[in-house]
């Protein structure tokens, strides 16, 4: 098949897209002059995907928290060796990450791109899962969870999610808990693998010094029959593998009430200064495609207008010592959840929370003006252009958009077209006082 080419004229770049016979979504954005080749293979399976219909049994299942991350760890295991070695052998560097909505496997190389891409595709088709290797991994994941539990900023965020949400799996840590990891079995992991690791549920993005047609050819040659992880495939032609064309059937999580579960949560841990995070649970969820991307863009602009470096609120909070220059915020809008989180280290957590609430309330009555919104639009447009400098960052943003049904250049158009009304709308419905929760970390006695 021929690849479809779209050009983002302003960036002087072209994006090539196609679908392999097996149903894998393929995207390529060549970057002239780069030495590096970078590929990201993203699976539409993240930490929030805990309820689904198992393709193995045809029955609905609820899997333990952290399972997507667990599976990501296991995909690198081969019989008696590690898939990392296979990449190292040809001078490529592989890595992977799991977030709330997706799992992504990536590599960078400056040499044997074809071989590395073949390895990447094989990586997601061949799990080597035995009860012995799964048990061993639990110890490693437990250490990882403990490492995150030592980070005050991470703990503040985890606690905030638990305060904001009653049921939605976004309230769980991405890696799960020590208990949920312990309760994960080989069968659970197989269920998840067979349900979600199908070509139609994946997107491959390649960038850097690459040839689109050649990369597509390699992607088309991938063998989608799950082997046993020792590198020997069983010879079924692409597209014939069971379930290759079936998309996973996700089940909605139990109805999430509009209210927050707790307006305030607090914990003590070893930390140099208190941390306060304020969260607003958006009253608009269930969006997808353009509507979802527009809300994300409007939410970003709203936060920048209210709390960005150029805002009066930031200046005032900074000058009075309420915040440091590491005060930060994020608007995170997905199909099943949407919220804004802002805050950071502060000597006065309560005062910071009050101040944030006051600024949000004031903005609902008397929002930012058109000059502010237009100036901030220049900022986000320019920052979007700088993404193209880094193959890794470009791939990350691409993957975060693709499962929302959003392309890179399309998202750029959305950024350009966000209106003052969009910003006012999100301020009116995304920052309500009754949907606000505060998470505080207070220092406990430090070491000697």
């Amino acid at each position, binding site marked *: 098949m021929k690849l479809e080419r779209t050009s983002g004229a302003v960036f002087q770049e072209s994006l090539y897209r196609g679908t392999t016979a097996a149903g894998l979504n393929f995207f390529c954005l060549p970057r002239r002059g780069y030495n590096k080749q970078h590929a990201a293979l993203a699976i539409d399976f993240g930490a929030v995907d805990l309820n689904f219909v198992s393709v193995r049994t045809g029955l609905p299942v609820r899997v333990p928290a952290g399972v997507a991350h667990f599976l990501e760890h296991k995909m690198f295991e081969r019989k008696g060796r590690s898939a990392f070695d296979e990449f190292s052998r040809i001078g490529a560097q592989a890595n992977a990450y799991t977030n709330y909505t997706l799992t992504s496997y990536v590599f960078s190389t400056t040499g044997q791109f074809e071989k590395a891409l073949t390895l990447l595709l094989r990586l997601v088709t061949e799990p080597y899962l035995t009860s012995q290797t799964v048990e061993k991994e639990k110890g490693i994941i437990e250490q990882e969870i403990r490492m995150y539990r030592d980070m005050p900023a991470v703990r503040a965020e985890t606690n905030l999610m638990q305060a904001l949400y009653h049921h939605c799996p976004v309230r769980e840590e991405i890696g799960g808990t020590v208990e949920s990891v312990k309760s994960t079995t080989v069968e659970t992991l197989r269920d998840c693998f067979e349900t979600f690791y199908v070509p139609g549920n994946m997107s491959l993005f390649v960038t850097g010094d690459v040839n689109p047609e050649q990369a597509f050819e390699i992607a088309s040659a991938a063998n989608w029959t799950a082997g046993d992880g020792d590198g020997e495939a069983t010879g079924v032609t692409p597209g014939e593998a069971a379930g290759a064309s079936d998309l996973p059937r996700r089940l909605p999580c139990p109805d999430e009430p509009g209210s927050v579960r707790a307006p305030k949560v607090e914990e003590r841990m070893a930390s140099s200064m208190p941390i306060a995070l304020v969260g607003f649970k958006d009253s608009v969820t269930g969006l997808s495609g353009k509507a979802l991307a527009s809300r994300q863009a409007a939410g970003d602009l709203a936060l920048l207008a209210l709390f960005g470096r150029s805002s009066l609120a930031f*200046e005032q909070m900074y000058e009075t010592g309420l915040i440091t220059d590491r005060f930060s915020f994020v608007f995170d809008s997905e199909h099943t959840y949407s919220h804004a989180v802002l805050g950071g280290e502060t000597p006065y957590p309560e005062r910071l929370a009050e101040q944030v609430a006051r600024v949000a309330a004031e903005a609902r009555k008397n929002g930012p003006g058109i000059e502010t919104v237009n100036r901030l639009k220049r900022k986000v447009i320019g920052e979007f252009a700088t993404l193209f400098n880094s193959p890794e960052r470009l791939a990350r943003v691409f993957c975060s958009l693709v499962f929302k049904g959003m392309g890179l250049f399309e998202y750029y158009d959305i950024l350009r077209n966000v209106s003052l009304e969009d910003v006012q709308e999100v301020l009116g419905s995304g920052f309500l006082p009754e949907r606000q929760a505060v998470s505080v970390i207070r220092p406990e006695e430090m070491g000697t």
Partner: protein
Amino acid sequence: METDFQELDLRPGARLYVNPTDKFKTLSIRVMLQQELRPVATSLGALVPRVLRRGTSELPSMRLISQRLEELYGSRLTAEVSKVGDRQVLMLGLDMPSPALLGEGDDLLRQGVRLLSSVITSPVLSGGTFDERLVEREKDTLITHIESIVNDRTQYALMRCVEEMFKGEPFGLFELGKVDELRAVTPSVLYDHYRTLVGTAPVHAFVVGPVDPDTVHRMLKESLDLPPRDSRQVSSELAPALNRELRTIHERFPIEQSRLVMGFRTHTGLTSESLYSAMVFEGILGGYPHSKLFMNVREKRSLVYYIQSILDSNKGLMFIVAGTSHEKIHDVQEVAGEQIDAIRQGKFNDFEFDATKQAISHRIRSSADSPHVQIGLEYEHLLAGRKTSVAERLGRLEAVDRDQVMQAATRVELDTVYTLSKGGGVE
């Protein structure tokens, strides 16, 4: 593939290095000032960039500077310090999206250059010196930063290990300064130090991106008003051979996961003939997922969640950093030591050797794909007094043989073992 910087005169004693390339969508400008690491001066040096980004005579607040940066399509102002060998480097920079890409012309570039220049040379003043409230605020924030390093347990452990290794020496000073020194800073002392830095410190300026070198050269000459200076560099010494016993430091801290840092002297610097053998040795040991530390300490023995090595060739140091549980600290240390011994005895296979060389070669090649890495490398090599091309670096890497790796492993000397955990002392 080459990163070709053109060298131009900016001011007497100050040079500009420009790499014009259409590869990037941004223009990155960096101005580096250097000074010796010294008590008090280092604290003042850490404070200067923070005060400079607070306002210029034309845009006298951070809010107004931020608005201007937004108008310049989300340009980013960087003001930070780092440690390069025995030097503290103050870096002031601006990254701006390419004006041409956004349908804008040289005027946008001129505004960007002017903004960065005035941040460096015409800070907002009050009564002929820095404003007292502003200085107090930045002192507080910087102190908060220093105190918060402990929240990142690994970074804290690494910082403490360096401090212990170089107690009483310049390199033992932390690049962000010291809390008690910072508390004592007055606006006039800080302003004097700033004047000295801008007036006399060695300066290098860099530009990478889609730009005509003559245009940006002219603009910088127009607006970056620096007095003439001599072009002498601040000198830096490699860490010499150890002349004392191995130091063991344990700190108690209420954390779930313990941290271990082992500090070594490598006796190999950026200009050493054996630089590339040291890099291959460190790579085989712990730089990558295929390395001995990861494979043996984590994968085979499950002793740690993470373990890696870090090389600092500006000072001739290597660190092994691990996160583990309190009971396992001793084992981790022992197994890590065994891995170094194994390399000394030539116990590494072709795969470990080849994969490491390939990984380093990948890093050298891809350094050209980032404007900031390009600038960082160019600057390090200028400081070390030895410029090398990508081709030369690849050639020297290729020439490293197994014997040289064994020699590099034999040269490293364990200096200090630092542990941080909730339990008591570690034997």
